[in-house]
């Protein structure tokens, strides 16, 4: 996983609540056994008309077609658990999603892929960020400082310490867990005695 430290980019504004993972990547794009190349399916039904022509969706418009930050409303990433959603964002070039709130599984999937999800609960700050993004202003994110900056705003965002460290280091979560293999084996031994029907 690529570490996440700092990022400065224009930001694509998608001021909608409840953007679901079927919208982020429709199921017909999930028929792949690879992680790469899913950017083509990102927001496919919003980026293309039925005849295939590009729409005026924000990610189709320069400079936002190169945006590394996406800004949305509440409950972003709700619905299906498909990790293809963060894979598609990442493949398109998005490394950070800012929203009023996130659905749980999507948020977990972001961290597993080096994408930083930032929740801004304060409605006025989020509205100001959308406006700055629409004007094409640059937005800066610093994970070491836990700050998001745009215009003359500085927003201190919250993130769990463990999540932050894992992103900063690009750490392999499986290797971390396997360092506890003795404890896992001890648990399995205890469980085999207490609940033999689970063996």
């Amino acid at each position, binding site marked *: 996983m690529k570490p996440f430290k700092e990022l400065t980019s224009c930001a694509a504004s998608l001021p909608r*609540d409840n953007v679901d993972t079927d919208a982020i990547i429709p199921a*017909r794009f*999930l028929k792949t056994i690879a992680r790469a190349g899913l950017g083509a399916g990102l927001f496919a039904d919003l980026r293309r008309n039925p005849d295939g022509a590009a729409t005026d969706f924000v990610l189709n418009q320069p400079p936002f077609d190169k945006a590394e930050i996406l800004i949305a409303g509440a409950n972003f990433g709700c619905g299906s658990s498909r*990790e293809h959603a963060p894979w598609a964002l990442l493949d398109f070039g998005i490394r950070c999603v800012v929203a009023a709130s996130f659905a*749980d599984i999507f948020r977990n*999937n972001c961290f597993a892929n080096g994408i930083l999800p930032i929740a801004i609960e304060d409605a006025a700050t989020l509205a100001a960020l959308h406006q700055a993004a629409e004007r094409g202003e640059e937005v800066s994110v610093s994970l070491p400082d836990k700050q998001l900056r745009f215009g003359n705003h500085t927003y201190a965002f919250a993130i769990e310490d463990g999540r932050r460290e894992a992103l900063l280091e690009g750490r392999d*979560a499986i290797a971390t867990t396997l360092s506890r293999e003795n404890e896992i084996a001890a648990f399995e031994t205890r469980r085999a005695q207490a609940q033999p*029907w689970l063996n």
Partner: protein
Amino acid sequence: MAPRTLFAKIWDAHSVAEQEDGTTLLYIDRHLIHEVTSPQAFAGLRASGRRVRAPQATLAVPDHNVPTTERAAGIAGITDPESRLQVEALAANCAEFAIPHIAMEDLRQGIVHVVGPEQGLTQPGMTIVCGDSHTSTHGAFGALAFGIGTSEVEHVLATQTLPQRKPRSLRISLTGTPPAGTTAKDLILHLIGAIGTAGGTGAVIEYAGEAIRALSMAGRMTVCNMSIEAGARAGLIAPDAKTYSFLEGKPLAPKESDWQAALAYWQSLASDAGATYDQEIVLAADEIAPQVTWGTSPEEVVAVTGRVPDPKAARDAAQEQTWQASLDYMGLEAGQAMTEIKIDRAFIGSCTNGRLEDLRAAAAVAKGRKVASHVSALVVPGSGLVRQAAEAEGLDKVFKDAGFEWRDPGCSMCLAMNADKLARGERCASTSNRNFRGRQGPGGRTHLMSPEMAAAAAIAGAISDARKFL
């Protein structure tokens, strides 16, 4: 010991380690996998030279890409090469890593969340995960079951654990007795309408109250299945005599002395009197009528006796805009009676409503009637065993005589991934779980409802109150 909730008991019993970062390393008892969200996890294992820690705790079954017609040819009969590749990859990965696999040709094949309980894999007190958000279904048995992403699938394959931050606890009590003709699907749709699609975010819901206790296991699975549509990580219902009786004798359920030991443990799982929750919600079930969604989010739902809401009545400007956009997409007018809405398609099936009891309920409406001439209607059993049992009761004949297509098991038209999907602009009465834009096909329009209601809509050719057909 202080009184604990069902959720806390399961959580505590599966803690391998409390970690410095505040997460718990949680042991996973059972891991279900399917063909869409697992191939990249196996590729990751292979790339890092890792093994599967507990292959026998894992069960694989293809469901999302499996066609519901022309099944005699097996995998070779999947005409879409990409779908075929995923189903082939699942079989090859299971062979390589020695994981039990119910192949596409197996009579037991079906939707992973129908197959797990049917085989007795799903048991009270377990932790169960699957790379699928509707894993919450298994909570109906008092198991802590939740959907995960593919990186987490790889994590569980490699370690049989997951680092998890403890979710908050939310008890939702449905009190009273629902009116005749109100089903489990109506209860959960009404509940989602009441608390919203983010109402359960960050929470494990424990469903309680007389209306929940009165539900059959199939009904409880329908309720827990749609916990994710309320935003929750998982839904749980305390096990009781119905749970044990469902499980007894199932192929993977404990046997003989193990059964007695398991039963004693399961009976200790219910939340203790005096246990406290982070949040409690109480809803009266006495007046919940059959529900239908009108919009493009499961929370956009009304009683079948109601009308399409007017965006001007929304709580704020943002919701007004959202509602208007939903009406535009759905091709509906504010104030229209729900029963004036004509449909083109009906879909009875899915992990929400593809069990035998669901098919019986739909067949009771369909019996001796005919699907409207402009409607094409599908019935897709949740598994091969459901299909077989339904045929033994003659339900297939009831459906076919009424003009429904009787299909082979799979996820089918729930998600527009296989051949079963809506054409642009088509309107569907569906027993599935999501009415998102394009969910059943680009430009398709979905109205979520119970099996009885979907059958009634197919026959009337328009959304209808199924109570008039019973």
